[in-house]
């Protein structure tokens, strides 16, 4: 029988250490909505989403109430629209009409984000996918809840540098199209290498073509819980440190697994995966940076940061894997700058630069995330940043991503405020030397060799 101390421990995690389930994301396939008539297809998409996800939000709220665990977000991911829209869309405007449909469907069922305005172009772009990519700035400007992602490379295919170059321009155009809102559109646009098919986290969530018709994926969180646990083992050796992270990750993930099973049962939708992630929020104490500082760094960015993050990421996985029946998505520690007070403080203190963040992305779950850069950054420079991240992902067989926000009209030393879970960010300096000639070459970077590892 459960005792009062165990009950108190769980409730302390929830009340004081921000333990929550970050998201229940319903993945919905739109493959059966494909139609050569745009209007018919939009209607089919709207109907399918609003039917499948009708009870998603209310079910999430009921589970949250019964178990006393906050479930912060209820979201939807759909099949990449680049595949769905090909038959009907003859222009970028046609694709924007699908974005509007997704936005309306999201509002109808009450989810706060819908992901899947996506193109998978790791080896090359079809005309439809290029049209979709070119429509992203407008699509993100005229919708509120739609999230977009583009996969430009993979370990098996190499990197499509034409897509990388185009995405440099698109990120900048998206920033301009949403300049009235401090370029917020870019916070809903991710450029991936090795994008997973079952990621429940925004802005990069989409429902991969290898998935079933409809599934439930759950993303857990809990940086505050890990940080509090580590306070108890200050000065202890690495074995003790690792054991503590594993135990804590196990407990946090078990809650995610419970919620995932329960949601799957009540919605009568198969359970997909639990994403074992430490996802920070701007709330005090809900910070991955503070965990790294608790491990022994004066500030994130100090020498030792990459090693500490590698250790954290690995132990979270080791603890979480045993707690869940199926694991997937991005799984690891997220290091978004604007969503993590400790990261923001480190940037303001001069401890953390984009170059150090890039090194950190070699060992953590995703990539350069929610980083505000000057609005006058060149498109080719953004493409260069994307290429660097994609190369790290391609060579190391991991997911990497870039979500940078060139804030139009603002420069280094200024701050940008996105609000809510997206937080605020100091604008970080970008290396001023040019990579124009590199980006201009065009073509592909071939896939790396998988032998002779050095």
């Amino acid at each position, binding site marked *: 029988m*459960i005792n*009062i101390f165990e*009950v*108190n421990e769980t*409730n302390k995690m929830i009340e004081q250490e921000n333990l929550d389930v970050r998201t229940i994301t319903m993945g919905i396939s739109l493959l059966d909505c494909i139609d050569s008539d745009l209007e018919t297809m939009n209607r089919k998409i709207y109907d399918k989403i609003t039917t499948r996800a009708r009870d998603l939000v209310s079910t999430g709220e*009921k589970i949250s109430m*019964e178990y006393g665990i906050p479930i912060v977000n209820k979201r939807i991911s759909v099949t990449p629209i680049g595949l769905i829209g090909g038959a009907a869309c003859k222009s970028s405007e046609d694709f924007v009409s699908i974005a509007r449909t997704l936005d309306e469907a999201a509002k109808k069922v009450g989810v706060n984000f819908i992901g899947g305005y996506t193109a998978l172009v790791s080896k090359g772009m079809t005309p439809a996918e290029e049209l979709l990519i070119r429509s992203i700035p407008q699509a993100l400007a005229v919708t509120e809840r739609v999230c977009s992602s583009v996969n430009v490379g993979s370990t098996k295919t190499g990197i499509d540098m034409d897509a990388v170059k185009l995405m440099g321009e698109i990120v900048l155009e998206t920033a301009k199209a949403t300049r009235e809102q401090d370029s917020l559109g870019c916070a809903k646009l991710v450029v991936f290498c090795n994008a997973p098919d079952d990621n429940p986290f925004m802005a990069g969530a989409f429902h991969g073509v290898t998935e079933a018709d409809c599934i439930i994926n759950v993303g857990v969180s809990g940086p505050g819980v890990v940080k509090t646990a580590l306070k108890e083992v200050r000065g202890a050796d690495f074995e003790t440190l690792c054991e503590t992270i594993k135990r804590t990750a196990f407990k946090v993930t078990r*809650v995610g697994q*419970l919620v995932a099973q329960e949601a799957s049962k009540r919605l009568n939708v198969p359970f997909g995966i639990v994403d074992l992630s430490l996802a920070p929020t701007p709330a005090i104490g809900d910070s991955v940076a503070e965990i790294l500082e608790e491990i022994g760094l004066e500030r994130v960015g100090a020498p030792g940061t990459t090693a500490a993050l590698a250790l954290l990421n690995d132990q979270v996985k080791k603890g979480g894997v045993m707690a869940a029946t199926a694991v997937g998505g991005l799984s690891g520690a997220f290091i978004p700058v604007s969503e993590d007070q400790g990261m923001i403080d480190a940037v303001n203190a001069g401890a953390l630069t984009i170059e150090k963040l890039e090194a950190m992305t070699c060992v953590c779950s995703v990539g350069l995330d929610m980083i505000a850069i000057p609005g006058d950054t060149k498109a080719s420079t953004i493409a260069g940043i994307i290429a660097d991240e994609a190369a790290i992902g391609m060579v190391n067989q991991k997911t990497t991503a870039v979500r940078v926000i060139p804030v139009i009209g603002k420069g280094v030393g200024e701050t940008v405020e996105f609000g809510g879970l997206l937080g605020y960010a100091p604008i970080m300096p970008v290396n001023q030397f040019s990579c124009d000639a590199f980006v201009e070459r065009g073509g592909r970077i071939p896939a790396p060799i998988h032998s002779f590892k050095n």
Partner: protein
Amino acid sequence: MKKTIITVVGNDTVGIIAKVCTYLAENNVNILDISQTIVQGYFNMMMVADTSASEKDTGTISKELGVLGDEIGVLIRCQHEDIFNKMHRI
């Protein structure tokens, strides 16, 4: 039978248990076990209860107990036992 864990945390005053038990009795909730302790000066009580005979669902009971807690000046939570079983038992 699915059990519900009810916890009460706050400053100790007269009649906390009486008020909570009265509410549970009125709503046909059976109490299976009670344990109580003082943690860092705070009154801490845990009840294991069976809500299956109640006409109200766990969500409603949880909400109403929350309101009752506000009246008494303590924090009352009502949670399905599985969240604790999952976290603390393999």
